[in-house]
């Protein structure tokens, strides 16, 4: 296990409100990590910082063996470096088919000229099929993804994330709106993915986190409150006070 992502001393202020306050987190590769915390604890802002959507006021965000700073990079450069993100609300391209959605996400060259003139990879269809089998959408590959149900869109988005083949997956509430059976499948999928790469899951649902059976980081008011196994953090008095107690 080597450290893949290192966030240290990061602070962000939105109009005077301190969303992230001197936050430091380290993620190893491979690792599965759950991030929990009450609303407004800074979970999503943390993801925004790592993926380049929000620029922090201070602090360092370092990625990979070469210790590249992510702060000077654009969103697309960060994504190309190997960080994939799933949003809380499923955001798939509804006007396009499931196949097109996955094809766009497949790891490949991303420049306009490559995409316009580049030949398709020979195993492209195979890879699309692999992903669609994994997420159970093979039957609807040629349907517009707008016609999918909420749960299926969640799946498609997870599938797009897998197709990107990132080193670090940031997953925001993957189980929202899913049934128990779907949740179980999601858990298995994330745990399997975490065998070869780093996966960070932001989740509200404690049952879901318990099933992930991994190290947990509790955020509160933009800083780390506690870190460790789920049992360890749930015994922590601070955590009980701010989160579990209410």
């Amino acid at each position, binding site marked *: 296990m080597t450290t893949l992502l290192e966030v240290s001393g990061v602070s962000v202020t939105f109009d005077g409100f301190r969303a992230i306050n001197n936050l430091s987190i380290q993620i190893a590769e491979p690792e599965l990590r759950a991030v929990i915390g009450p609303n407004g604890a800074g979970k999503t802002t943390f993801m925004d910082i790592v*993926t380049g*959507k929000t620029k922090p006021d201070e602090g360092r965000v370092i990625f990979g063996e070469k210790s590249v700073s992510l702060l000077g990079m*654009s*969103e*697309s*450069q960060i*994504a*190309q470096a190997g960080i*994939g*993100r799933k*949003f809380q609300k499923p*955001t798939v*391209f*509804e*006007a*396009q088919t499931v196949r*097109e959605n996955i*094809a*766009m*996400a497949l790891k490949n060259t*991303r*420049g*306009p*000229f490559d*995409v*316009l003139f580049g030949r*398709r990879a020979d195993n492209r*269809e195979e890879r699309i099929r692999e992903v669609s089998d994994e*997420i*159970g*959408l093979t039957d609807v590959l040629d*349907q*517009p993804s707008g*016609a*999918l*149900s*909420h*749960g*299926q869109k969640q*799946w498609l988005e997870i599938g*797009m994330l897998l197709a*990107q083949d990132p080193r670090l997956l940031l997953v925001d509430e993957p189980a929202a*709106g*899913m*049934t*128990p*059976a*779907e949740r179980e*499948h999601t858990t298995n999928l994330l745990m399997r993915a975490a065998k070869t790469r780093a996966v960070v899951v932001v989740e509200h649902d404690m049952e879901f986190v318990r099933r992930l059976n991994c190290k947990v980081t509790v955020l509160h008011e933009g800083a780390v409150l506690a870190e460790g196994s789920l049992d360890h953090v749930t015994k922590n008095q601070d955590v009980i006070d701010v989160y579990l107690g209410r």
Partner: protein
Amino acid sequence: MRKSFIAQNPSVLWFLAGLAIFTLGVTFMSEAAGVDMISTSFLKTLGKTLCLCLVAIAMDVVWGYCGILSLGHFAFFGIGGYAIGMWLMYARTEGIVATSLDSAALPPTPQEITDAIGSQIFGVVGSSDFPALWAFSHSLPLQLLAVVLAPGLLALVFGWLAFRSRVTGVYLSILTQAMTLALSLYFFQNDTGLRGNNGLSGLQNIPGLEARGQAVVSLWFFWASALALGMGYVLFAYVVSGKFGSVIRAIRDNEARVRFLGYHVEHYKLFIFTLTAMVAGVAGALYYPQAGIINPAEIAPIASIYLAVWVAIGGRGRLYGAVIGAALVSLMSSWFTGGSAPNINLGFYEIKWTDWWLVLLGVSFVLVTLYFPKGVGGIFDALVRKTAVERQGDYGPDKGAWRNDEGKPS
């Protein structure tokens, strides 16, 4: 697994076939063929309409597919027209000057010829020197290059500045409109060296082809316009199909998400903006020799707004829609404003279409936007394509997922 380009885009074949039949039909009915069912002036109108269709599909790609509501593409069209117009004026004036100087006692020096051309062209704005802009006007190949490169470079620089700052939506539209207005005002100035508000004229007289007569030359331009439209259609059909099309439509629908997939959104926008500007320049270069005159009013912002209206009425996001919209509206516009449309006498008030055409156009734009967001081209959807998928069966992909009879998933 991979379907051929034509199989993916059945509209290309239909469009090319239709265009070929139309071109042949018009050719056999034209004055040049000796039938005289289509007058030369109407032939020019048809040829011009084809050029407008070409710039409309460029607009459709940049707006309907990539989501950039550019109000500057008619400026690129105009620049293309100016670029070819400069050569046309220079070469024709050179011919006239050479003839008149031939009768002089002494043979003219090259400097005398240049001066005479200069005073012929720029006399109208009280000048006789060639401005720097005209440096290449003596050379047809260089001016033809300028037809593509001048709009392309302008679009590249402007687009790079605008997209890099992540200006989007209505703000970008305003910015492109400001560019168009600035450009048109710049062209209006006499100092610019493009003959101010007189513009360039006499463009219908092609040097070297005077003996052919307008009937034949117009037909040639008609063919060239049809060819350019056909090629433009195939080009853009290729660009918007496949994965590239997938990416630009995704940019239109959710730019931020495309960034998180690792695509440099700005590069894609810049590519599309520049490519469509270059095609617009080509369309303009074919249009203005048929129109005969170009002046800065042609590139005023209103022209680019009309372009957006055509595409909206024809149907955004489908290439044939843009063609239908441009052809329909511009032909109707020349019919209504040309005085051919019969006035309607209401007894107390007579509706003169020359005055009321704009109102009619405005009302139909509003109606199309409200009730037929897919535009006229949307009719083909109902005829050809299957209607939107109606989702049947279960909500979730798995056992234990919500079923239809349980109602919507929470």
